[in-house]
């Protein structure tokens, strides 16, 4: 009898958060200025999902982790040089646009189809992981749609903790309003978990893991299927940067007591 979990992590790439972003409008709609030149990173919350997946796989013998990623192949290759050193996984690549202005409905369809065709994937043991939102579109909608495509109705969003019970059930903590966590018990896989930050720190780089991963990652990149993803029926009337430059009053050389009184007076005003 097979044991362990088959964990599929959906995670794209996003511009490095330290980069300045500027929207531009091209023939296919909005995008980012010099998008292909911007350094990219694995989407932060998808990264947390990947680390949680690897942690779970380590605990449950017979488990396996796949990272399914949609993005420009060349950018994915750059990002994988770093990500591959973190935890063991098998990469599944879809070569296509990875920006924030694509349509999650279309992204979900191609990702679901790709997951369906992963060789050896046991959907009865499937845990579909991902970030609860991306740092690009930021919708938090793709995972649920993939879950629907795959017929999974046990879905969780904003997950910070997953604990496997002795009976195989899953205890899941999801972020809800007012800094609380909702505690749920799910009978077991298949399930969809959109991860928030979780509880694990970013794993240190491990060159041995990196070398083992890269042996499969390079072929995966080479045979990446092109994915046609757009935004049919969606029209962006405008995309703009916020105009939030403020005239900052710099207060220097004011005694601490005066600053404190000024702050208190400001807080007190309606």
């Amino acid at each position, binding site marked *: 009898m097979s044991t362990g979990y088959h964990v599929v992590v959906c995670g794209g790439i996003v511009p490095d958060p330290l980069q300045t972003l500027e929207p531009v409008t091209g023939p296919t709609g909005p995008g980012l200025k010099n998008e292909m030149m911007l350094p990219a990173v694995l989407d932060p919350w998808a990264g947390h999902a990947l680390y949680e997946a690897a942690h779970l796989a380590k605990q449950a013998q017979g488990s396996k982790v796949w990272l399914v990623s949609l993005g420009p192949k060349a950018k994915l290759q750059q990002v994988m040089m770093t990500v591959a050193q973190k935890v063991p996984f098998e990469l599944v690549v879809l070569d296509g646009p990875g920006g924030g202005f694509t349509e999650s409905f279309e992204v979900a369809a191609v990702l679901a189809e790709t997951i369906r065709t992963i060789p050896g994937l046991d959907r009865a043991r499937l845990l579909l992981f991902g970030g609860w939102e991306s740092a690009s579109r930021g919708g*938090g909608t793709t995972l*649920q749609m993939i879950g*629907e495509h795959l017929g999974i109705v046990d879905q969780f969003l904003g997950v910070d903790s997953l604990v496997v019970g002795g009976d195989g059930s899953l205890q899941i903590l999801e972020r809800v309003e*007012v800094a609380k966590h909702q505690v749920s018990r799910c009978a077991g896989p298949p399930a969809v978990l959109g991860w928030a930050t979780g509880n694990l720190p970013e794993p240190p780089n491990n060159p041995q893991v990196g070398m083992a991963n890269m042996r499969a990652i390079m072929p995966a990149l080479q045979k990446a299927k092109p994915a046609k993803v757009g935004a049919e029926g969606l029209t962006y*009337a405008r995309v703009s940067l916020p105009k939030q430059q403020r005239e*900052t009053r710099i*207060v220097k050389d004011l005694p601490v007591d005066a600053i404190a009184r000024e702050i208190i007076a400001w*807080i007190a005003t309606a």
Partner: protein
Amino acid sequence: METILVLLHTESEGSLARPALEAVGAARGLMEQLGGSSLVVGLVGGETQAAASTLGGCGAARLLAVSGAEFAQSRYATDAAAAEAICRAAGATVVIAPGTSRWLRALPGIAQRLNGRVDTHVTGIAAEQGAPAVSRWYYRQRMEASLTRTQRPWIILVDPGCHAPWQGAGGPLAPERLSVELPETCRRTTVTGLRAPAADQQTIRPDAELLFVAGAGWTKKQADGQVHGGEAANLILGFLRLTQASLGGSKSLVDLTGEGQAVLPFMTHLNQVGQTGATPRHPKGLATCCHGEEPHVVGWRFITERRAVNLDPNCGWARGKADVLYVADAFAVMQRVNALLAERAASPKA
């Protein structure tokens, strides 16, 4: 002509929370702008009668409800089944719902089931050229877009705090109760409860007037060459206690705590604001010891009045982003602030 469904869920005691009433306000506003459109209310919850009786005057032509013990839980399978039934019964072309954790989890899947589309974190809805248009942010609140869609149904989840709540009178509007058969697969998950910090450790208060943002500077060596983590914790908690402000933290500070460095033990990732954290809405924000550029500054994108205390007059967190920057030692300033607040609390007439 659109059929606008405002889809709400009740709270555990059967009432409607403020985000639900904001969604009603947004839906009514859109209906008024789109001539000839109609409004339908959908309710999901353990008990919906009390909520239904408050919505009679909202202008809805119909009120559809799915209720019962199975629908009291905030659970994907049952929420999705209820929402799907209501959307189909209403013949909705536009669905407006509050962006609560419950609906953010369930409704994107409904868009898939109905072959519709969904937009979350919507901050504005209006009619443009006779069709609905929404605005929302991309790249973690770093750019704003206005968009329209041709596909229907279009599910729109509005962020709390962006629309005025509907405040009309209740009245008679008989709910049409829908029966939803749940297969056994919908009962694989059970909600067992909520976990919350102890009352005295609750530092996140979404309704607070003030957001207090603590940066990693609180954990750095001070002028005497020592780290004053304990003092920092006392100053911050003291300020929160005296002002009932909500606490936010920069990523670097939250990460320090997460890595086991017990610098500010009450600071968790739930407090994090910025690029990979929350972007809370408060009328005022006071940032202390925060440093950084755009990725962190998005954390107070929706803070109306902003002030900052730190030692660097050129800090990217504050310059051009804050209204006032006090160039001073935050330890000294907050100690004095707390002392003055404590004095006032002790003698309220002063």
